[in-house]
């Protein structure tokens, strides 16, 4: 492994808001772009492209992605960004729209270069202390946990806090989140995420070419894609399909190659396992982790079965319960030839 390199593993934050006013309308989507940019500046990233539909707005960032729904913000950032510095400003901005926070969830995998992380991300313990200090006491159902796997390099860090306990009533649409982290990408496949010097393309057009050439556009045929290719390498995309987002980020350099796929699913859409399989096939990774939040056992086992269809072997299946987020299941896979613990 390289001594130092780009940290592909993202930090992810989901903030859920609510209003006493029964008519929320477009809620957080009213936020002035300049205010959002100021928050991103504190995190140390910028917007590179954006796309919306009637349900939500999506932004491709210089370091990963931001999604803004009327009452929900999802932001994930990679590298050495200081994601948690956005918690207070986002809560404050929402207050200006009479929206108050009702739930927060912070998740991440295991950093490849933990020593390179700045405050407050120097350790999970520090992150939890920072979060505890920066959220209102009304979010009283709290839990922090590290879900292990048999692979020492992969564990799943979760901090969840909510004003009410999780139940199916809180989640009437049965929405769940799937976060896939892939390392040791196939070296032939990850070459496709390098730009060709002087190709006359811009980040947008080079990104569009990568989307098509790699088959990313075939993961969900119903989604509208907003993509971007970084120079000299790296790729990000957001997909929007009705009220569901998906997002992919790629750090292709040898020694610390990494790709992530994340998608929100609903029990009414039965295609999640198939999408995870297609996404994993794009990268041919040596190791894969899949974290599902608030999904049924049935969905998790279906994902396991489809990932195993493409030559991966499930090495661990662990779970934990969070009072405000429901069940989080963390599975890890390695290629059969790559069986080492």
């Amino acid at each position: 492994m390289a001594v130092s390199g780009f940290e592909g593993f993202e930090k992810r934050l989901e903030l859920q808001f609510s209003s006493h006013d029964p008519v929320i309308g477009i809620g957080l989507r009213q936020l002035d772009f300049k205010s959002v940019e100021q928050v991103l500046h504190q995190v140390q990233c910028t917007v590179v492209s954006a796309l919306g539909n009637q349900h939500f707005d999506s932004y491709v960032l210089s370091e990963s992605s931001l999604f803004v729904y009327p009452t929900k913000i999802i932001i994930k950032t990679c590298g050495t960004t200081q994601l948690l510095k956005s918690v207070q400003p986002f809560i404050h901005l929402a207050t200006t729209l009479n929206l108050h926070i009702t739930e927060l969830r912070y998740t991440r995998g295991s950093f490849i270069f933990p020593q390179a992380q700045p405050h407050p991300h120097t350790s999970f313990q520090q992150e939890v202390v920072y979060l505890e200090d920066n959220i209102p006491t009304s979010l009283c159902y709290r839990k922090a946990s590290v879900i292990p796997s048999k692979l020492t390099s992969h564990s799943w860090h979760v901090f969840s806090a909510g004003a009410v306990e999780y139940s199916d009533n809180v989640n009437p649409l049965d929405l769940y989140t799937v976060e896939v982290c892939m390392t040791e990408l196939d070296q032939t496949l990850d070459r496709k995420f390098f730009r060709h010097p002087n190709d006359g393309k811009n980040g947008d057009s080079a990104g569009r070419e990568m989307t098509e050439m790699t088959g990313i556009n075939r993961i969900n045929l119903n989604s509208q894609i907003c993509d971007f290719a970084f120079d000299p390498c790296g790729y990000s995309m957001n997909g929007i399909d009705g009220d569901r987002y998906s997002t992919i980020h790629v750090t292709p350099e040898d020694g610390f190659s990494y790709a992530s796929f994340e998608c929100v699913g609903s029990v009414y859409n039965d295609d999640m396992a198939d999408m995870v399989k297609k996404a994993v096939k794009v990268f041919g990774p040596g190791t894969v982790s899949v974290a599902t939040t608030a999904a049924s056992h049935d969905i998790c086992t279906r994902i396991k079965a489809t990932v195993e269809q493409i030559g991966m072997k499930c090495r661990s299946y662990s779970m934990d319960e969070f009072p405000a987020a429901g069940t989080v299941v963390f599975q890890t896979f390695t290629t059969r030839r790559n069986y080492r613990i």
Partner: protein
Amino acid sequence: MGEEGQVISCHTVDAWNQQIQNGKNKLIVVDFAASWCGPCRAIAPFVSELAKKMPHVIFLKVDVDELKEIASDWGVEAMPTFLLLKDGKTVAKVVGAKKEDLQQTINKHAGNSSSSA
């Protein structure tokens, strides 16, 4: 016409048809946007700047709520979507608030008539 250098909002189907008719032989850039769409608001100032810089190109704006049938006729599914039209036909499409791509695509199709009388 007093509209050169500005983004012209089309509020009715008639106004839209009129603009398309008037714009024959010219490049038309249509910004399909919505008031509730953050990315549309984010890129609007940039589009206005382009319109100022390129008076030989016609810039139209269509609110997808106001002119639903036009947005759906032209296959607009996400916002903002920019269509580049010549003689009433789509010559290029940019989906998303992508400044560099939008500018390059317009440059490619606008020709070199910026000094037109």
